[in-house]
Structure formats: C-alpha cells, structure tokens
C-alpha cells in the first residue's frame, strides 16, 4: 500500500489525558511549619505588593499581590443611577461585582458568575458600605469591579483591601480604609492568610473552619464578617482578634501605597 507521506500517523493505542494530569491533592500536615515557610498559630500574613492607579480608564484602581494571589480592582463613578428608589435621593448607592478570571483557579472556571461569586460580591458590598460617605453623593452610583487574576487563597480578604484602596484612589470620600484578613482554623491550630491548598484542605478533624474579617483600623470597627465550618465560640472570638491583628500588620503598607499614589498623581503643589 502506498504510504501517506503528508499526514502524521497517530499512535495506534490512545490513552485518556487524565492519566497524565497531576496526582491527587496532597493532604497538608496539621502541625509543623506551613508549606511556604510561615508559622502556624502566629499572625504571619504574606507580604503584599500594592499599587494604585493602574487602570487608566477607571476613576480609581488598585492592584494587590499577596503571595500568588493577584487581584485587580477598578472603581467607576459617581455616576447617575439608572434605577432609582426612595433611598437614592438622599445618599448614593454602591454596587460591587467580583469576578474570577477563568484561568484564576487550578480548575478552569467560566465567565458567567456562579452563586459563589455573587456571595463574594455581596460580602464585599456589605464590608465597604459602612466606610463610604455615601450621603455626599445623592442620586449617584459608585461601581466597584474586582477581578481575580489568580486565586491562591484568601481572596475575599484581599479583595476587600484592594477595593477600599481603589475607592480611596478614586477620590471617593470614606470614613476609613477597610482591610481584610482571613484565617483558617484547623483543629486546635490556625493559619493566617491561608493559601489555596490550605483553604481547601478539609481533613477529618473537628473544629475546621475559615473566617474572614473586614476591619476599619482607624475607627476600630468590624464592618464585615464571614465564617464557614464548625468552630466553638471561643475559637471564633479568638479568630476575630487574630484577624484584626493581621489587618493592623497590613495597615502601614496600604497607607504607604496610597501616599505614593497621591504623590505620583500630583507632585508637591
């Protein structure tokens, strides 16, 4: 039979591609040092890189990187509200939208918002709303859009920080910055600012849970709180205090980034 020289012959035996994918997830040890060298049971947040004013089309924007987690937030507004109701006449409205890029998680996601994304957006709105001076913007709408570029854990907390930075960069009047921090309770020990593997590591021990806190450092108020899993009351209150400490650790970095952004936008007048 004349051979076909124009085509590359396929192998005669075919195998499923899933055989070549990574093995099952590694179960992380619940004591000892963490995978990236940080300590358990200590307020050891990942160092962050923050920068404001990256998105030129938006009124204000911010980018945050913590370990491998990367988030971008842009703020539009105040603009006129399309749908009006009674409360809009006196104060403005805040709309938040948090989306995960399809390439952000280890498993490819879709562009359409799932229910989990909507929960994140709602938590973001609840955390940011107390900090804004919305009564100064009647009949207006402020839009906050967060895009997660890479999800390597603790996304909710960093989204809150990023969004409040972007709002400050946009010149929206705020009572205070909002910082977010999350912990993961694993039995009797906890890890602050968990990575993706640490977050999704559901081992069989009791008292497993996660906690995210949104905190206003200067006013010393908690504006958002979300927890899941099973924790006792003392663990929960201790966890909130830990998160607040974690927020205080982030505070100087965030302040520095804002100051730099103001200087960059307008050198000493």
């Amino acid at each position, binding site marked *: 039979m004349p051979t076909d020289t124009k085509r590359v012959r396929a192998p005669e035996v075919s195998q499923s591609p899933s055989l070549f994918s990574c093995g099952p997830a590694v179960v992380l040890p619940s004591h000892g040092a963490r995978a990236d060298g940080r300590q358990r049971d200590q307020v050891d947040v990942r160092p962050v890189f923050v920068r404001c004013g990256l998105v030129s089309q938006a*009124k204000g924007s911010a980018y945050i990187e913590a370990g491998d987690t990367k988030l971008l937030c842009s703020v539009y*507004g*105040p*603009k*006129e509200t399309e749908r*009006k*109701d*009674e409360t*809009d*006449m006196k104060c403005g409205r805040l709309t938040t939208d948090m989306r995960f890029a399809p390439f952000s998680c280890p498993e490819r996601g879709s562009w359409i918002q799932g229910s989990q994304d909507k929960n994140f957006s709602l938590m973001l709105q609840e955390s940011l709303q107390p*900090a804004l*001076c919305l009564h100064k*913007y*009647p*009949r*207006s709408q402020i839009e906050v859009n967060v895009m997660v570029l890479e999800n390597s854990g603790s996304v909710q907390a960093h989204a809150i920080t990023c969004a409040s930075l972007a709002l*400050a*960069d946009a*010149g*929206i*009047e*705020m*009572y*205070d*910055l909002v910082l977010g921090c999350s912990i993961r309770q694993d039995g009797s020990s906890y890890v602050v600012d968990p990575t993706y593997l640490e977050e999704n590591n559901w081992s069989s021990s009791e008292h497993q849970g996660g906690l995210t806190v949104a905190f*206003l*450092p*200067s*006013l010393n108020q908690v504006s958002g709180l979300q927890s899941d899993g099973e924790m006792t009351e003392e663990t929960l209150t201790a966890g909130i205090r830990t998160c607040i400490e974690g927020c205080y650790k982030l505070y100087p970095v*965030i*302040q520095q980034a*804002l*100051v730099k*952004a*103001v*200087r960059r*936008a*307008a050198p*000493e*007048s």
Partner: protein
Amino acid sequence: MSPTRLCVPGDKLCSVEDCIMGTGVYLRHGYIYSSLAGYVLRKNEGEELPVISVVRETEVQLLPDVGAIVTCKVTSINSRFAKVHILYVGSTPLKDLFRGTIRKEDVRATEKDKVEMHRSFRPGDIVLAKVISLGDVQSNYLLTTAENELGVVVAHSDAGEHTVTLLWRDGGVQPQVETGDRKIIIQFMSTSDLHCPHSYERRKLCVLVCVSVF
C-alpha cells in the same frame, strides 16, 4: 501655611478646637479625621481658627448641587419641558452623564404661561442653567433658566451646521440673526445698551459670542 502633609482616609488630623472643618474631612468624637487621600491644607481665612481641608489635585468630582450653575445641552423638547444632558458644573467638566429637565414654567421669569418650548429651545443648544432641585424618584435634576444670566448660549440654526448669534428675551431663544453662510458674527452687547420700552419689563440680553462657520 504649614508644609503640606499627605494623609489617607481615616487619619486623625487634629482636634476640633484647633481648626475648623473644610472639605474632605469629617468630625468624630471631637476630632477631625480625613476622608480623602491627599494633601492636608491649613488656611487662615480671617476667622479665629484655621480651616483644615484635604485636597486631591486631580479634578474634584462635583455633583450638580442645588444652586449650582451648570452648562447643559438640550437633547429633546416637549411642549411641557426640555430634557438636557448636564455637561459642566461651574467650570468643571463632568466625566459621567447626568440628566436634567427644564420645565416650561422655569424657562423665564415673566409671562411663564406664554412660553413656547419649541421657540425657546432647540435640540443641540447649549444652555446655562441653575439647579433648583435634585428631583424626586422619577424625575431628573430640575433646572431653571429664569434669570438674567441664564439661557441659551450657543445654538445651531435650521440649516444644521452653522451657528448663530442669539439675542434672547428673558431666557427664550429668538434667533434674530440670520444664518449667513460666510458671515462671522461676533456681537457683544451689554444689557444697559438695549434697555428699551417694551411690553416685557426688560429685554434680557446677554454677552454672546458666536462663530459662524462655512
């Protein structure tokens, strides 16, 4: 002025006994805190205490407020009102779109019931107006042109591309000058020059510049 210092929202600036509040700050428990990320300015304005405010050099986001003079463009007219897009608040351009309405009775101060909207405004006219109300749930910002300094500033003629100088009476547009094809019309008139006895109590004119393009 003390050297400028940068602050972020939530920074405690000073006590309320030391300064008076300006813009970009808020008061809480007897202390003044910053509500913007920007430069702290302390100004002595002749009162006992200096005024402290936080400013950002980038354009301040202004919202049309009651009593503000705005520049707007007419988008559609009706026998009862004209709808406009607000473009400038004072001299600051707005980045986003705000809508306003000029009702028939707010076009001029005298003879309000004899106003004819299609003779007073045309779509595409640039109008100087004043905000009288933020409006309620259904309506947009309510504007008025019923003052001497307010009214149509620039208009397009029927021919389309040419602009005409306008003299207007009491806020309404009365195209007095024809749309010359190659005429450049620049007319400056002051109100005192043209005070003449007329059935209207005072003819209202305004400084108008216009350029006709051919």
